[in-house]
């Protein structure tokens, strides 16, 4: 027999107006406690609202992160494409640089060859001076011979007059020849000097200033080779750097994809708020119902109502169980009440 149906000691059963002081005090105490049910329900409502607000803010932040990750992915992909293009351009620069180096070497070889030819030419021109020396020697011999002829002509008297004239002419020709040879020799020497100056880098004799001694063919060739090597080295370093940047950009694209996956998972995890909301709302509803039932009990104890108003109290546990919306609630109920548990778990995902 339920507690509230047992006859009261010292009182007539069914007489609502003669409750003893203990019962009246118990009823009064219950009346004072009933608001606590509503209070607890309201606090639980606060929990639901707070978690919902937090979940929505959290979702907004996740979407912002996701958007930023998408931007990073786009920029990283663009960077990777640009560095790939840069790599192609650098390969072309490298090819041209190599070709330029080969051209420089060919040009250097040509210049060296030409310089040798000019040097040989200078030497041959100078050698002409030897021939001029011979001509001048012949001219001097001719002059001497003409003088001797004139002397012999003067000894021959009037018979040597014609011979003297010839001797004079020969001597004049010899003088002119000597003069011409001297001028040619001067010109040849000037030409050879000018060619030699041109071979030495354009200075007009003497020291050309700083680096003059270094502007030899060999030094210039070495400098050009060094420049070509440095240029190739620079291009190779740039190419390596571009490859590394491209690789880093591609990895960044992959990492951005990973972030996208993580943010998607985080978004779905926010379902926890809805799950807990439903549990809490069920608890709040149950507290409200219990509050109503205890109000009814206090009314009976205080003699204001008959016991029929407490009729629903016995079925409270069943109403609680029937309000569950998920397996976890039913499992917990079965554990605590000893009632039979659920059948085997159905799959979380099912297509009919």
């Amino acid at each position, binding site marked *: 027999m339920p507690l509230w149906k047992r006859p009261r000691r010292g009182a007539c059963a069914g007489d609502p107006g003669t409750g003893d002081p203990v019962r009246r005090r118990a009823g009064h105490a219950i009346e004072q406690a009933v608001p606590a049910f509503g209070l607890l329900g309201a606090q639980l409502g606060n929990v639901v609202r707070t978690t919902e607000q937090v*979940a929505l803010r959290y979702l907004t932040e996740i979407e912002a992160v996701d958007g930023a990750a998408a931007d990073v992915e786009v920029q990283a992909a663009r960077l990777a494409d640009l560095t790939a293009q840069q790599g192609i351009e650098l390969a072309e620069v490298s090819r041209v640089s190599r070709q330029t180096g080969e051209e420089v070497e060919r040009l250097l070889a040509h210049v060296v060859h030409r310089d040798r030819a000019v040097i040989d030419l200078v030497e041959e021109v100078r050698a002409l001076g030897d021939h001029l020396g011979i001509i001048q020697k012949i001219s001097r011999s001719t002059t001497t011979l003409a003088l001797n002829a004139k002397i012999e002509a003067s000894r021959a008297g009037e018979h040597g007059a014609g011979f003297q004239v010839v001797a004079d002419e020969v001597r004049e020709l010899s003088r002119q020849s000597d003069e011409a040879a001297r001028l040619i020799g001067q010109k040849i020497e000037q030409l050879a000097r000018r060619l030699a100056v041109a071979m030495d880098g354009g200075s007009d004799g003497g020291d050309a200033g700083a680096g003059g001694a270094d502007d030899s063919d060999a030094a210039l060739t070495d400098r050009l080779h060094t420049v070509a090597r440095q240029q190739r080295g620079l291009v190779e370093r740039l190419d390596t750097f571009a490859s590394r940047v491209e690789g880093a950009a591609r990895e960044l694209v992959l990492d951005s994809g990973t972030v996208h996956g993580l943010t998607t998972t985080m978004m779905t995890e926010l379902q926890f708020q809805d799950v807990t909301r439903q549990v809490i709302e069920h608890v709040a509803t149950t507290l409200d119902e219990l509050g109503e039932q205890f109000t009814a009990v206090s009314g009976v104890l205080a003699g204001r109502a008959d016991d029929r108003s407490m009729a629903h109290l016995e079925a409270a546990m069943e109403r609680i169980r029937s309000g569950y919306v998920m397996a976890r609630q039913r499992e917990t109920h079965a554990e605590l009440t000893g009632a039979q548990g659920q059948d085997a778990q159905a799959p979380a*995902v099912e297509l009919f």
Partner: protein
Amino acid sequence: MLVDDSATILMSMSAVLTKQGFEVTTASHGADALGKLRSARPDLIISDLNMPTMDGMTFVREARKLPGVRFTPILMLTTESEPAKRQEARAAGATGWLVKPVSSDALLTVIRQVLPGA
């Protein structure tokens, strides 16, 4: 179309599906969704079960009466897992059943199964 009385579910699931390229319409209960279905023709409907005004079970029955929704896949996304409820939903015309919380992978796998072109 997403139908749920939880703002968190509507926002989070919308965000997940939008990232995958879906265009998402939302409704906060069954009656709201029916109103929108008179002009919209979604390729897929995902609905909660326990909602105010009109619950998911009633919504599925009423939606199946609409000419353009008779063959639209309707998935129930709910905390409920009781076999009797599942059978009731199946009889009402639901296409499938997913228990909250569902992972993004599981959700997208089921969607691709009911929407082969997705």
